[in-house]
């Protein structure tokens, strides 16, 4: 299981970034979602020995970071935190696949190393595009896009509710931990029995909170349907963005740009 340290839960900052106003932030959320999906699919479609062909795809995250004014460090840090499983699962490639595929100035490189590097590059590309999607698109925006894409309403409702109460309950949990630590010195008070008392009480409180929320919803005329007053229109720029980026992804999939450039340089 991942190590749930503080950084992992520090999602408030990404959320704050998503409310900025740049050209990237203003692009229709649905378009951004679909473009990101296409990007990820194309990236993972490369076979495990292709490295240099993946390189041009860095253009997408780098473009989003710079045009969306997203601090690079934040994204890098997040990528670093979630990496262990991938690093582990790919770790054996260099040991097990020892066919030599490259010789770089006399140093032989095995297929295993190539495929390991390719996994890591894919990892960076796919993870950063997911993070950048959320850093440049407000979550409610993504949810209304999902609704437009015919994702079941109950599911979208759940996403909205969890998003809303995630922050409330996370802070509540943090304050509970604070209260416990204040009166538990060092390791005392962290035993499993106290833990169950705390979690159980927290669960009951959450359930009771849902009752109050239900009442609040009803007080404002809830009848089983949640209505959103929001219509997201397609702007001209949205369509341009979608067409441009998808065709660049496909062209890069068809032509080996890195190698073409490399060839040109070598000839020169």
């Amino acid at each position, binding site marked *: 299981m991942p190590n749930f340290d503080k950084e992992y839960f520090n999602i408030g900052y990404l959320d704050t970034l998503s409310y900025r106003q740049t050209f990237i932030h203003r692009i229709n959320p649905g378009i951004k979602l679909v473009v990101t999906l296409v990007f990820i699919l194309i990236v993972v479609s490369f076979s495990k020995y292709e490295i240099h062909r993946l390189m041009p795809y860095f253009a997408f995250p780098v473009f989003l970071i710079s045009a969306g004014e997203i601090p690079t460090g934040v994204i890098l840090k997040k990528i670093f935190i979630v990496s262990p499983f991938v690093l582990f699962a790919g770790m054996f490639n260099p040991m097990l696949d020892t066919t030599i595929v490259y010789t770089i100035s006399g140093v032989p490189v095995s297929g295993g190393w190539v495929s390991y590097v390719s996994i890591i590059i894919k990892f960076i590309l796919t993870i950063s595009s997911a993070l950048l999607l959320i850093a440049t698109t407000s979550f409610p925006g993504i949810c209304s896009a999902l609704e437009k894409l015919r994702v079941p309403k109950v599911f979208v409702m759940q996403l909205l509710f969890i*998003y*809303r109460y995630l922050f409330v309950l996370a802070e509540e949990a943090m304050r509970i931990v604070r209260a416990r630590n204040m009166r538990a010195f060092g390791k005392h008070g962290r035993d499993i029995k106290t833990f169950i008392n705390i979690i159980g009480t927290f669960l009951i409180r959450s359930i009771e909170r849902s009752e*109050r929320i239900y009442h609040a919803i009803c*007080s404002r*005329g809830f009848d089983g349907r949640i*209505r959103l007053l929001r219509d997201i229109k397609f702007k001209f720029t949205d369509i341009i963005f979608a067409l441009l980026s998808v065709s660049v992804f496909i062209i890069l999939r068809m032509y080996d740009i890195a190698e073409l450039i490399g060839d040109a340089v070598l000839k020169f």
Partner: protein
Amino acid sequence: MSHHIIEFNNVHFTYPDGTDALKGLDFRITHGESVGIVGANGAGKSTLISHMNGYLLPAKGTITIGDLQLNKSTINHARKTVGVVFQNPDDQLFMPTVFDDVAFGPLNLGMTRERVIERVNEALTTVGCLNLKDKPPHHLSMGQKRAVTIAAVIAMQPDILVMDEPAASLDPKSRRQLINLLKEFRHTKIIASHDLDLIRDVCTRCLVISDGEVTADGRTDEILLNEPLLEENNLELPLSLQHK
């Protein structure tokens, strides 16, 4: 307009764990009155307020809102008539943005898009939060959350406005703004609070609750000067009258 009347008749309530919180409440509030509810900690004020639009239903006795007696089938009417601002704003702002939240009620009332937008803008302007429209509630400060909760209730234009401890954790200036807002609201309003100075500023009538019963009911300026009564109910003279 009998719409704006609230009447409690011998209302009893017991919490599931056996605590008798209300023990036969009796009172009647008519159109346009502004009523303060005061009393010791644990006297039953919040429990009483939870009955006003059916969050809790009485175990015994009856509650009448407008012309209708409150029960499971009239609960929706009560919810439309009585707008309640509870103690914790987080439980009441459930939508992902301030705009969506304030629009939620009017949309459910079946208004047109334009009317809804107008109402929302109006309500947010009243509480001075129009600039927060696109923010998610978790990016607001406590005082801002409270203001938005009030806007969400105002946007539904309830006939009766009810608030539980509305000034808690507001700084003195925001508290003063809230007092002015309440003074301007022309319909029936009911406010439970320990802030007796606020009650004195806003309410003309005052109910004193003690151990689940009404022990006094009268003009605010009489009740809040009645020192033996105050003493009995864990209360004090409003601070602005305690010249030092």
